[in-house]
């Protein structure tokens, strides 16, 4: 019972990471495809400013996923990290490069430096979700069981491939949807159209991929296919489809807050559908939730810790996102870090009377 609850918490955390982290990776995708230094400068400027205050928080969800895995379901953690060694190792290298590339790009002044860091950030933003998706695909297709050793077989199957591509496309989709809103917020109407068409394009690719995924799952991952075609799995598939259609419609009309809600709904529902379809297994068809569950006392405490933390963290996260979307968060500019000569020249006026 407690184990089921913690499994749901784990699934929700994965969904949260897919949405928050996904938006972030997607911004990197559009950074990569924005074109040369001059042509892509405006899109990159928007990516930089929209992401900066929230990207760290977006990615902390992943830490939470890992902690729930090893505390709540130690056997699952051991099995996945043993079998999926290569994709997970590559994903973590990608995450490091991505974070470093992003954070160093801003303060570096020379074009060459910005190009290097920007390229590192953007390429890693595409590679990382692919490998994470591939690892999830390996789990969904039943290629991982407790004791499976690391091999390409575990993560190079057809399900892994479509999940990897799906992850990249979904992040691009989320990124474009969120950047459309950010473009409005930052008063860049040309970029609203720019990202709106990219959001619609990636939604189209996502639809095609969804059909391909359905065929692949049917042959390659029978258990998940079975779960997706009935019950809770089917319900979330339906929610995902409806949300995706709604996102498309809202994108064609005037995009506002609701388009973000719909896009997040589509991606989150897809993750939930996968999780529900795997029931009762964490690793189909070798490890059930009940078998993988850690000590009962720990699970109870993990629930308590989660609850207390939710009470603390949710208001904080809401405050952050609220402040961010209301334009209250802005990077310190160079002039803020300069000694002012009284605010009369140059308009920096930071340290008045200095």
């Amino acid at each position, binding site marked *: 019972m407690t184990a089921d609850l913690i499994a749901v918490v784990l699934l929700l955390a994965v969904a949260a990471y897919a949405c928050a982290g996904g938006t972030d990776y997607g911004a990197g995708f559009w950074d990569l495809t924005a074109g040369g230094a001059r042509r892509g400068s*405006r899109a990159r400027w928007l990516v930089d400013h929209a992401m900066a*205050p929230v990207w*760290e*928080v977006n990615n902390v969800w992943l830490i939470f996923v890992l902690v729930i895995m090893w505390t709540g379901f130690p056997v699952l953690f051991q099995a996945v990290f043993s079998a999926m060694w290569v994709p997970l190792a590559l994903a973590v290298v990608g995450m490091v490069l991505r974070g470093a590339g992003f954070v160093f790009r801003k303060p570096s002044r020379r074009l060459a430096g910005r190009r290097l860091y920007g390229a590192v950030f953007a390429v890693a933003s595409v590679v990382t979700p692919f490998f994470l998706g591939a690892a999830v695909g390996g789990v969904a297709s039943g290629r991982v069981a407790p004791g499976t050793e690391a091999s390409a077989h575990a993560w190079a199957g057809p399900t892994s491939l479509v999940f990897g591509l799906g992850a990249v496309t979904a992040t691009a989709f989320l990124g474009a949807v969120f950047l459309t809103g950010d473009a409005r917020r930052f008063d860049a109407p040309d970029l609203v159209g720019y990202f709106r068409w990219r959001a619609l394009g990636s939604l189209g690719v996502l639809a095609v991929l969804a059909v391909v995924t359905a065929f692949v799952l049917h042959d390659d991952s029978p258990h998940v296919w079975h779960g997706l075609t009935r019950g809770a799995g089917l319900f979330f598939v339906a929610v995902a489809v409806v949300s995706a259609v709604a996102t498309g419609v809202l994108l064609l009309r005037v995009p506002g807050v609701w388009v973000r809600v719909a896009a997040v709904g589509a991606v989150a529902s897809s993750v939930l559908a996968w999780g529900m379809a795997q029931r009762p297994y964490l690793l189909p068809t070798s490890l059930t939730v009940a078998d993988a569950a850690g000590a009962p006392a720990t699970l109870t405490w993990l629930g308590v810790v989660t609850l207390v933390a939710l009470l603390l963290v949710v208001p904080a996260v809401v405050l952050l996102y609220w402040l961010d979307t209301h334009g209250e968060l802005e990077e310190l500019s*160079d*002039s803020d870090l*300069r000694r002012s000569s009284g605010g009369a020249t140059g308009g920096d006026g930071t340290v008045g009377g200095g």
Partner: protein
Amino acid sequence: MPPSFHLLADAPAQLLPARELMAFTLASHIILVPLGVAFPFITLVMHYRGLRRKDPAALLLARRWSAVMAVQFALGIVTGTVLSFEFGLLWPGLMGRWGDVFGIGFGVEAWAFFLEAVLIAIYLYGWRRLKPRTHFLLGLPLPAAALLGAFGILAANSWMNTPRGFTLDAQGKPVNVDVWKAIFTPMFGPQYWHFVVAMVLTAGFMVSGVYATGWLRGRRDHYHRLGFALPFTIAAVATPVQFVLGDSLARSVFHKQPVKFAAMEIVWKTDTRVPEYIFGRLQEDGSVKGGIRIPMLDSLLAGFSVDTEVRGLSSVPPDQRPTATQATIAHWAFDVMVLVGSALVVLALWYGLIWLRYRRLPASKWFYRCAACAGVGAVVTVEAGWVAAEVGRQPWIVYENMRVAEAVTATRSTTLWVMFGIVVVVYVFLFGSFLAVLLSMRKRWRLADAQHTAGGPPPAPETDAPYGPRGPLPVGRGRPRRTGDGPADGDGPVGGDSPVGGDSPPAGPGRTGKGRR
């Protein structure tokens, strides 16, 4: 062949690369940890001073430190993420068997860290638009979140030293988990406070060291004196406290992990009137080569009496204790920590005495030379303390319950060596870039300060623009400050409604400025 070589030969081939990789990534991460835990605290103290005394220099320092924190915190997040992946990639046996016993600490840590990331984002990006008071108050919980995060990590680490809160069933699997006992293990309290104070003093010395260097180069205005004195005072208060805490931690190790204590003090035979060796190398046969031998001191330090019996390494079979080489490493690390730590205490006392006697900063060049090195010295003590704690626990990953060799991944050693190579290259790039960014920030600020002192206008925004043409300088920001507008009108609610300098977007159709809507 000496027994320790047999042990090494029995160890799986992937143990060495796994260990090296973990050690390398953790040692690198540790450099950032003091800043992550204590830099927000120091910055907030400076911020408070700026608000309280309406001191623009203090506010400028706090803002510049925030800009550094933004980069350093992000780097800490990525290197920290690597560590949590490595638990699975390198030590799946540890997490698979014991994850549900000691993992809850990480649960606390994850959420605390989450909170810290949120608060730090608000703090770093709130300077311009939030009201000064609101901004400061929103930053205030940061040190508490950092303490909570440290709580989780230290709970997990001290559990590995003194595992409690479970019983083993017939197959050797842990059952009857008691989470409370697993968190508050005997080593937890001493380790935690030792760690927290270490972070505070290291961050204090690191930051003040920068300004001590400035002092030596002749930059001695109010701004530099403040940038030196505030973090140094915090560090100077923490250092003597740390001396006492460290001493009490060593005694806890003596009581709770006698074999580790024996390794740290290279004691071979259980005895009373045990001598203390300063450095020196333990040989396979139990003799000690080199080093300074101080008779009876070890017994005296461990139990306040020369008749205190100290357990030696030979009291347990060879496969349950560190090898002679490992013991020597732990011993040297311990001695380095104590020696450098003592030097820092002397420096803190020097500072304190001058302050008590003359109510001013020391004027001696030698003081500032030492202070400039104190940051590096403090990082050395942190690294050395960590080495002593971890190497001294060998061969155990969970003290007396699981060997490191049992926990290691089955991945081939070649793969691990390749990964190690990649990680080293990536980290060199990472930390090299970090240094380059810090230096370029310093250069820019120094340039700006020089121009300010010379009375010239600030540099045109174009000079620091990375891309394309910039938007025109806005009007409206340069208006004279109203009285009572707060010490820094850039923080004011009405002060920041148009873009400035380094912040405006490249020109494009329809750009109307980045206004608040």
